[in-house]
């Protein structure tokens, strides 16, 4: 176990600034997820920490020690790569053994270490195979096993589930937290999959364009996304975002959606008349009867039944697309005209120009998307 601190890191490639004055603290034993779209600088960040590339400015401290003059092989890091980066000319055993052969460990100790971690990852039956003869899932597990084999205090996992199929990804998403906890290491985990981020992270750092846009627990980020972009990235199906201009009424601030007033209780009055974007999670919208006061007429376009929920795409009279999600098995319209109602308490309001959050939803959601 160890801590990791990044202080004002800058990394440029020619004129392109990949990391822009980035600072980050990872606590002892914590799993921090770096989440963001490709090109955000996540992989570059991991490589800086690993020591295979050097920052142009700033400091990296591992366990409180500045590692600027410490080469990659002495940093005590385990790393798994997105493309696995297995040694193609070595067997799975030798691949996993590579962090152990670098030490003075005896042959027996190396063999014991490899078998222990291979058993943990359920690949002990393919240890004699070369990477070419391994399935994608086995390759991914071999790469993870190699990262874990040396029991490094700091683990860097660069989107290790990116190149494996959905079923395996689901399995590993369940298995990894237990594995990482057993390892007791401090973990930096890179991913582009918000579900993975939610499932694995003690904290999530949302990155884009070389900066950290928001950092917090998964609940923090889901319930109070710092801006429109983050709100869009977190949540499946994606949050509905509609341009609105809040107005003042007798019951406080309200917005009009298809000429139906949706009141936003507790909203400060300074947003009145400002160009805003309202964010509505698909779970915050329900189907309702035609006669209800808050019923917004829509037309059902398509329905997608997922495992645990049904997602319906509807069109408003003005042609805006809205996603509505409801628990699977509950009744709802399949096609034709219908009505929806919006829960104003569960609405996010963003500033249209800056994109930043004005007010988060009053009703909090858990990371599974259910109202708490």
């Amino acid at each position: 176990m160890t801590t990791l601190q990044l202080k004002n890191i800058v990394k440029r490639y020619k004129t392109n600034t990949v990391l822009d004055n980035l600072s980050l603290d990872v606590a002892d034993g914590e799993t921090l997820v770096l989440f963001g779209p490709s090109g955000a600088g996540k992989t570059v960040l991991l490589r800086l920490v690993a020591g295979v590339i050097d920052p142009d400015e700033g400091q990296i401290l591992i366990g409180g020690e500045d590692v600027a003059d410490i080469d990659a092989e002495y940093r005590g890091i385990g790393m798994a790569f997105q493309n696995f980066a297995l040694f193609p000319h070595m067997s799975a055993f030798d691949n996993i053994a590579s962090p152990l052969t670098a030490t003075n460990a005896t042959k027996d100790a190396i063999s014991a270490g490899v078998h222990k971690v291979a058993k943990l990852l359920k690949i002990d039956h393919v240890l004699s195979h070369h990477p070419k003869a391994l399935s994608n899932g086995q390759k991914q597990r071999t790469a993870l096993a190699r990262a874990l084999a040396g029991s490094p205090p700091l683990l860097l996992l660069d989107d290790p589930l990116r190149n494996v199929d959905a079923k395996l990804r689901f399995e590993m998403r369940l298995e990894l937290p237990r594995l990482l906890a057993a390892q007791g290491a401090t973990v930096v985990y890179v991913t582009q999959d918000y579900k993975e981020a939610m499932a694995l992270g003690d904290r999530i750092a949302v990155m884009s364009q070389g900066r950290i846009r928001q950092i917090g627990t998964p609940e923090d980020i889901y319930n109070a996304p710092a801006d429109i972009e983050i709100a869009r990235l977190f949540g499946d199906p994606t949050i509905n975002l509609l341009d609105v201009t809040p107005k003042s009424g007798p019951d406080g601030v309200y917005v009009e959606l298809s000429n139906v007033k949706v009141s936003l209780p507790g909203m400060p009055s300074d947003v009145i008349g400002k160009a805003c974007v309202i964010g509505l999670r698909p779970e915050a919208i329900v189907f309702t009867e035609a006669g209800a006061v808050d019923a917004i007429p829509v037309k059902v376009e398509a329905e997608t039944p997922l495992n645990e929920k049904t997602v319906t795409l509807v069109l408003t009279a003005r042609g805006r697309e809205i996603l509505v999600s409801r628990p699977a098995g509950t009744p709802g319209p399949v096609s034709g005209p219908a009505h929806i109602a919006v829960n104003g308490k569960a609405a996010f309001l963003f500033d249209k120009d800056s994109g930043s959050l004005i007010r988060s939803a009053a009703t909090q959601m858990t990371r599974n998307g259910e109202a708490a």
Partner: protein
Amino acid sequence: MAKREGKTMETTSTLEKTLRLIALTLVVIFFMFPIFWIFLMSFQTNETILAIPPSVIFTPTLSNYAALITGKLTTAAGTLDIAFMRNLGNSIFLSVTSVALALVLGVPAAYAFARHKFKGSEDIAFTLLSFRFAPPLLVLLPLTQYFQWLGLADTYFGLIWVYQLICLPLILWIVAAISEDISADVEYAYRIAGHSWFATFRKIALPLAGPGIAAAGLLAFIFAWNNFVFALVLASADKQPVTVGALAFVTSSGIQYGQIASAIVLSVTPTLALALYAQRYLVEGLSLGAVKG
């Protein structure tokens, strides 16, 4: 109707097959015939070779090979001493040593060019390649002067040095291209696992570039073996390779075609054997970039 259509298609493909076979045969004959003819010539005397019309029916003789191996060339004007076997030895020594030296120098350099973009690295790499553009004679004339001043003229050391002009750029560029194709992540992974850069070079970079290095070495060997002009200008008889040594067969009493043919057969054999042995690596090494994706 359907049946007839099927039949038409079949005839087309048979025709295509036949045409392809004929085309292939022509190509093979075109390239193989000179070699085959030389092979036949090496077992004939000058008289049967020069007979008109030429014939493939003759009494084979080993006299040409015997003359080469014993070093005694019997011509109409008398017996000449030739140093063919020594030339052959020189060829082997010069080519093997040059390629070995070029590999020792070129492979680490190629790796450096591929992995580390330092200031001027492109320029240095290009300058080395440009040695291959210049006509050898252009380099040779001033070089002859320098070599005489330095006392390198007519030494194996000097020749091997000049042969680097042939071998080094070739190895450098092929190996650099192949090293660039190998994912740097694989090397990073080994570094991070706790191994030094040198161990990474030895255990990861070298084995992965192995087929490419073998291919580059083989090509360099063939080019070095076939070189004529460097040794012609810079070396005297006892240091010359077979390519230059073959000139000895042009004697005052005529050209010894039989001996030339057998000399060619003998001098082609080592490269041919090497190429056949390394064919696998050659194809794999040179197409590495194409198939890896």
